[in-house]
């Protein structure tokens, strides 16, 4: 196939190819052509193996070289490429080392280039002795010293590289859970490790969130001296409802009640008026009565919360986008499924015999399943109408059932919450003098306090199992099964959270008269933000404890029983696989609670850091000790994007109620940084009013329709443009692929012709030779 002919047809897309091909011919032909011809004469049908695409790894080496972006390296790349071409041609690698050396007499390299080349030796597929030899030769070669600025630039690059190596070294020393991860990887493969990495990632995210809170909320509160509280004058009705009086009353309630051990887990009593909760923070600006530093805590509070949500969004979206990009590059996931399975199926990190056996089995099953799916696809097209209707009915029924179960559990939680509140209210606030004694009534009260959360967690444990049995009836393909189960479980969890939030809403949103601090007739808590914070605090603790208990006291005995019994039924009950979707949900759920609660309980991210730290070990135990390796093949890339998607969903759920609370709800008068304001947001607006005029007018302009509509149209156009580009690219891919196939056919055809031709010529030559020798014989 001639390069010229292709160039005419190739159009825009194929230029890279052409270039590579052309260069190759120029480079290797003079040297190799002799040998090629000889080989050809020996075996004409062998001609296919002489094709550049078959013989060399030119493409790779070239690409590797070209990856760094400087044009400087161009020459380098051609040179080493030529070298590796030579290497592949000769089987005796050892004489080649000299040939691989660049021809230095032609063009003297400078130091930087030599150094770059040394850095690139590592990518060559040759053994170490040769690499070292090559390096020494490069080093001892004569080279130009760089002058002036270039020298400086090169030195800087070198130092930077060394610094990066150092950094990597220290980082790998500090890397958390390195050995745990290796162990899990060795036993369960990369898909499960992706989950643990996700857990680790979440922990670091929470550390970041906590640091924000520490820097802008906690430290100022601890370090700075609070201004003198306004004094409260009791008497007239109008002053009774003032901010100052309410705050005082609220503080009095809190300091007067005694503390129980039960308060520690509930976050009430003495715990209520600490840094843990919203209510503690002051509404005044620090440093107003003294001179020097001023710090507006309320403003800092709201800004920090907004920053936390923005930061989380950016982090989640970035990770999700990375996964998404990978999926797109993969070509919509389904293009190369067989190749992925065969070439990327084995996890090279597995080092445990037992999991290796299971991995073999899993791969076998997966291959079977692929082939089966292919057949099922055919079968589905041939499905009769009756079967279709039957399947549809079954799916419809199951879905109706699932929805009713979801609604049922939501109402159940709602009533439980109602009952719980009613019974708590019926207990009088025991202002007892016994101090830290645990009385029966205390315990019952505690039980009622935690009842809703125990119910929520209990439902979360049992209902998914039901779903898992139901899905078998529906006859979906395996991939869809994972997704549908996950989606249903997510809805269950979110539904229970929603019910919890609505019940809060009912309690919180009440008319508060001018002259009172809170609506005491309807059980409204004195400081509802703190109250909500306490609830999330409790929910987080319950959730974590249940994880702990279920792992160590339920699943662990189960797995022990399964390991030591021969009885099939008991084994069936006891044996458990590491059910990835469920564990992902556990983690995402606690993260949602953290997001929901961080406005009301600023220390919740710290709790989440500690929680996820221990959760790692709990899950590690669940994974390594309790579970047997899963018979399902989880792919790292696919599961990772799934995690992020679920997390994004949870984030959206979390931001709605918090946003509503900030923008719409009336903050309680007696506590917190926002007492006295109509809504939290009005503080931001009033701050905005203090901005300089020009800034205000700019921002006002941004919010008007005159700016908004053109901006929207512009964005829409941009979006459409990118959509069009991607569609065109997709089309181009198909066209190019077809073209490749066509080229392949052409090549095959020409090769066959060529080899036939050569053979014919050889035959003729032989014939002639024979004839002439016969003639010779005859002559003799």
């Amino acid at each position, binding site marked *: 196939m001639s390069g010229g002919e292709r160039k005419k047809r190739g159009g825009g897309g194929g230029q890279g190819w052409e270039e590579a091909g052309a260069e190759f011919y120029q480079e290797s032909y003079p040297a190799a052509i002799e040998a090629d011809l000889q080989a050809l004469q020996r075996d004409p049908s062998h001609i*296919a193996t002489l094709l550049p*695409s*078959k*013989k060399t790894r030119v*493409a*790779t080496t070239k*690409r*590797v070289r070209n*990856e760094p972006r400087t044009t400087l390296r161009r020459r380098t790349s051609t040179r080493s490429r030529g070298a590796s071409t030579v290497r592949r041609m000769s089987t005796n690698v050892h004489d080649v080392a000299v040939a691989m050396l660049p021809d230095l007499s032609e063009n003297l390299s400078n130091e930087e280039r030599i150094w770059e080349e*040394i850095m690139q030796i*590592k*990518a060559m*597929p040759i*053994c*170490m*002795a040769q*690499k*070292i030899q090559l*390096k020494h030769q490069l080093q001892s070669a004569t080279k130009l010293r760089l002058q002036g600025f270039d020298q400086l630039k090169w030195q800087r690059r070198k130092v930077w590289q060394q610094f990066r*190596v150092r950094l*990597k070294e220290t980082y*790998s020393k500090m890397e958390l859970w390195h050995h745990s*991860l*290796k162990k899990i990887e060795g036993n369960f493969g*990369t898909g499960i490790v992706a989950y643990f990495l996700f857990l680790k990632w979440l922990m670091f995210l929470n550390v970041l969130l906590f640091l924000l809170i520490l820097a802008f909320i906690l430290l100022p509160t601890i370090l700075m001296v609070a201004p003198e509280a306004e004094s409260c004058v009791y008497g007239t009705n109008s002053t009774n409802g003032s901010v100052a009086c309410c705050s005082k009353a609220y503080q009095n309630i809190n300091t007067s009640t005694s503390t129980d051990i039960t308060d520690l887990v509930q976050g009430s009593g003495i715990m209520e008026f600490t840094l843990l909760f919203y209510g503690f923070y002051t509404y005044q600006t620090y440093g107003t009565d003294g001179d020097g530093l001023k710090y507006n805590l309320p403003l800092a509070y709201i800004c920090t919360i907004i920053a936390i949500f923005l930061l989380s969004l950016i982090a989640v979206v970035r990770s999700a986008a990375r996964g998404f990009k990978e999926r797109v*590059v*993969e*070509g919509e996931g389904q*293009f*190369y499924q*067989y*190749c*992925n399975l*065969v*070439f*990327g*199926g*084995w*996890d*090279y*990190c*597995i*080092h*445990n*015999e037992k999991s290796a056996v299971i991995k*073999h089995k899993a*791969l*076998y099953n997966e*291959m079977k399943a*692929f*082939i089966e799916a*292919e057949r099922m696809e055919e079968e589905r097209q041939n499905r009769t109408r009756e079967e279709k209707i039957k399947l549809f009915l079954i799916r419809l029924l199951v879905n109706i059932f699932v929805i009713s179960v979801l609604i049922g559990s939501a109402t159940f939680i709602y009533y439980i919450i109602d009952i719980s509140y009613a019974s708590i209210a019926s207990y009088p606030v025991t202002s007892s003098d016994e101090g830290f004694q645990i009385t029966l009534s205390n315990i019952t009260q505690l039980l009622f306090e935690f009842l809703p959360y125990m119910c929520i967690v209990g439902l979360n444990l049992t209902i998914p199992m039901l779903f898992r049995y139901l899905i078998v009836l529906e006859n979906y393909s395996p991939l869809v099964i994972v997704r549908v189960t996950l989606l249903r479980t997510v809805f269950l969890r979110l539904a229970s959270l929603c019910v919890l939030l609505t019940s809060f809403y009912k309690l919180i949103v009440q008319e508060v008269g001018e002259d009172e601090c809170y609506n005491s007739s309807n059980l409204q808590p004195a400081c509802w933000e703190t109250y909500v914070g306490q609830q999330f605090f409790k929910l987080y603790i319950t959730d974590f404890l249940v994880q702990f208990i279920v792992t160590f006291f339920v699943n662990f005995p189960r797995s022990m029983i399964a390991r030591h019994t021969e009885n099939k039924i008991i084994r069936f009950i006891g044996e458990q696989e590491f059910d990835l979707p469920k564990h992902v949900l556990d983690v995402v759920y606690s993260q949602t609670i953290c997001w929901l609660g961080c406005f009301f309980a600023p220390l919740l991210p710290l709790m989440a850091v500690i929680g996820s730290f221990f959760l790692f070990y709990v899950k590690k135990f669940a994974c390594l000790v309790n579970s047997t390796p899963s018979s399902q093949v989880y792919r*790292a*890339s696919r599961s990772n994007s799934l995690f992020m998607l679920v997390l994004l969903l949870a984030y959206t759920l979390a931001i709605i109620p918090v946003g509503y609370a900030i923008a719409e709800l009336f903050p309680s008068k007696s506590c917190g940084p926002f007492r006295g304001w109509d809504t939290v947001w009005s503080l931001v607006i009033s701050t905005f009013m203090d901005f300089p005029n020009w800034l205000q007018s700019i921002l006002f302009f941004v919010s008007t329709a005159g700016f908004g509509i053109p901006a929207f149209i512009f964005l829409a156009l941009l979006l459409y443009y990118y959509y069009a580009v991607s569609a065109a690219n997709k089309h181009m891919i198909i066209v190019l692929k077809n073209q*490749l*196939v066509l080229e*392949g*056919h052409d*090549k*095959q055809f020409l090769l066959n012709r060529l080899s036939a031709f050569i053979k014919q010529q050889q035959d003729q030559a032989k014939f002639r030779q024979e004839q002439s020798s016969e003639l010779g014989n005859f002559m003799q």
Partner: protein
Amino acid sequence: MGIGKSQFSEEELQDYQDLTYFTKKEVMFAHQKFKALAPEKVGHNRNAKLPMAKILQYPELRVNPFGDRICKVFSSSQDGDCTFEDFLDMMSVFSDAAPKAVKAEHAFRIFDFDGDDMLGVGDLRQVVDRLTTPQRLNEADMQQLLQCLLEEADLDDDGALSFAEFEHIIEKSSDFSKSFRIRL
């Protein structure tokens, strides 16, 4: 890591760091792992050549269906016996830092059983067989699998995968570089 230090000079370590994807510390750590395979032999000669059977005791290689192929590909004497430098090369390619193209190059050689620089039907069949042992796909399934595989990847329809085609697949597979990896 004191033991490692006595066996290598600073210069050698610098060489190794420049020529692999490892830092000096990791090189020494790799040497410890290598030494653990045959303590007395490596104790005498730090670059001793270990027979393939010994190298295959390395946990990840022991259970790997392509363990012997890996040894052969990385062995400088081409018979599967590895010196420490070969072992270091191997670990370097399998490390996180190695780029996809380098991994692909070696993976191709590992899968290329007959050494003809093409992944033919025979090679692919052997790969699949090694993946599924002790079970075997029956002939019809195997045929179908190979057919689907070639349909996806064999762009020029010659019934075998050339390196360019193989690399093309690897380029698009995000799982490959994640799974083709051994943590030191």
